[in-house]
């Protein structure tokens, strides 16, 4: 018996659920320097320098094809860069997994697994209570036994969020996860994302084409243009943010006009 016990794999503490951490204590810092990436002859990122503090919420906006999604995929380890460095507090981005989780625009739930099994994907040990708790955080604890096919688009994204949260990510990457939702569901999801971010304190990078969404959620909005960072503005508005607030509108206007100016120049 004792011999067997020696061969048992070490317990994986990151999968035991610890509720309500103080903000900022759990996030991973990110340092990006001179990051480049091209596809064929076409350069997509032409030297990105960016530092993210642990627990910071950063939104990346930009027009289609500006390289914002590519940046996110490099951070996730889904692609490899051509040059420059990309470093997390707890080591280089060496591939998949680790403490980084990504949420895609489509929920990418496995249709052949029940909601709870989707949330517990890849977890070991006694994961069911942990997954159940993650579902509770997104308000879907009663849908645990259902097939993803019967859920609405917004509910599927909430399950995807629970799946990303269940392993307590240090860095959560959000690739336009609310892009396909209707306006009302979007606003609900935004406050949900903000709430779990404040509770868990992970570092978050949100790629979006919706400037209002970026200003609602982020500590800092970064505008990427032609593979470079064109604008880096802090958002010093109290949370939860009111879209009708004049400061909100002013900031949104400033970022938008920057975006539109480029469009005029192109035309």
């Amino acid at each position, binding site marked *: 018996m004792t011999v067997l016990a020696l061969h048992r794999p070490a317990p994986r503490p990151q999968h035991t659920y610890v509720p309500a951490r103080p903000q900022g204590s759990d996030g991973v810092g990110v340092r990006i320097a001179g990051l480049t990436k091209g596809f064929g002859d076409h350069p997509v990122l032409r030297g990105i320098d960016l530092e993210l503090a642990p627990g910071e919420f950063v939104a990346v906006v930009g027009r289609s094809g500006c390289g914002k999604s590519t940046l996110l995929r490099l951070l996730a380890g889904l692609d490899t860069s051509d040059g420059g460095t990309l470093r997390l507090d707890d080591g280089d981005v060496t591939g*998949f997994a*680790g403490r980084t989780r990504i949420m*895609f625009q489509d929920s*990418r739930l496995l249709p*052949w*697994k029940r909601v709870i099994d989707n949330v517990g994907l*890849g977890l070991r040990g006694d994961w069911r209570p942990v997954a159940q708790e993650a579902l509770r955080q997104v308000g879907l604890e009663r849908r645990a036994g259902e097939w993803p*096919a019967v859920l609405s688009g917004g509910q599927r994204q909430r399950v995807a969020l629970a*799946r990303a949260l269940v392993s307590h990510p240090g860095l959560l990457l959000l690739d336009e996860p609310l892009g396909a939702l209707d306006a009302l569901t979007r606003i609900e999801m935004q406050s949900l994302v903000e709430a779990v971010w404040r509770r868990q304190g992970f570092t978050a990078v949100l790629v979006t084409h919706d400037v209002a969404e970026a200003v609602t959620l982020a500590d800092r909005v970064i505008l990427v243009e032609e593979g470079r960072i064109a604008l880096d503005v802090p958002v010093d508005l109290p949370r939860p943010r009111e879209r009708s607030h004049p400061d909100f509108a002013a900031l949104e206007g400033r970022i938008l006009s920057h975006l539109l100016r480029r469009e005029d120049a192109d035309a």
Partner: protein
Amino acid sequence: MSRAIVRAGADRLLPWLLPVLALAAWEGLAQAGLISTRVLPKLSDVALAGVRLTGSGELFGHLQASFARAGAGFLIGGGLGFVLGLLNGIFPVAEKLLDSTVQMIRNVPHLAMIPLVILWFGIDEEAKLFLVALGVMFPIYLNTFHGIRTVDAGLIEMGRSYGLTHWQLLTEVILPGALPSILIGLRFALGIMWLTLIVAETISASSGIGYMAMNAREFLQTDVVVLGVLLYALLGKLADSVARLLERWSLGWHPAFQKP
């Protein structure tokens, strides 16, 4: 309430309406003497032949022999097809190496191999197993391969970024994603399985349903020949029902298979 039961009953019975009507018409016409018994014996005679052969244990023996061949051939051929499909679906190198060869063999009608197979194996069990396995292999191979290749790449990417091991990726993402296609291959394969077996048994065998029918022909026992034909129809339907049941059971998540 009772109307719902009537409707449910009607739903179950309706598919059998045409077969039963056809059988009734057959018996009626034969009784009236409109069909020569040399062409088609009376249904009641066929049933009597069935009862007689069941009583003597002969029918059961033949059924058992056919089932054993079908099952063994299916397992061998289906297993090979599945493994090949898996290999070529996952590893592009394997596909480059093997696929052309498999496609060439596939395009030889396997029943045309019968003369060669008899030369190789004589009329023993191996000949029939070989033919069934050869016939069953390709639909399973093609659909497994296709199923694996068409698994949503986004799901595989998600699985990898969520830290699944290669094994978990295979068993939790790739295989379930390929399953609908694999089951279609299974249904095709079951059809080919019976077809091949019957042909093989009529040509060279000393037991089995095909042999029973061929043997009866020698003695002009038309009723037994027809009994064999009816058994084929029933066995084919049975195989299809099993495949459907399997689909329903394993594809419960699929919107197309969910009960209304």
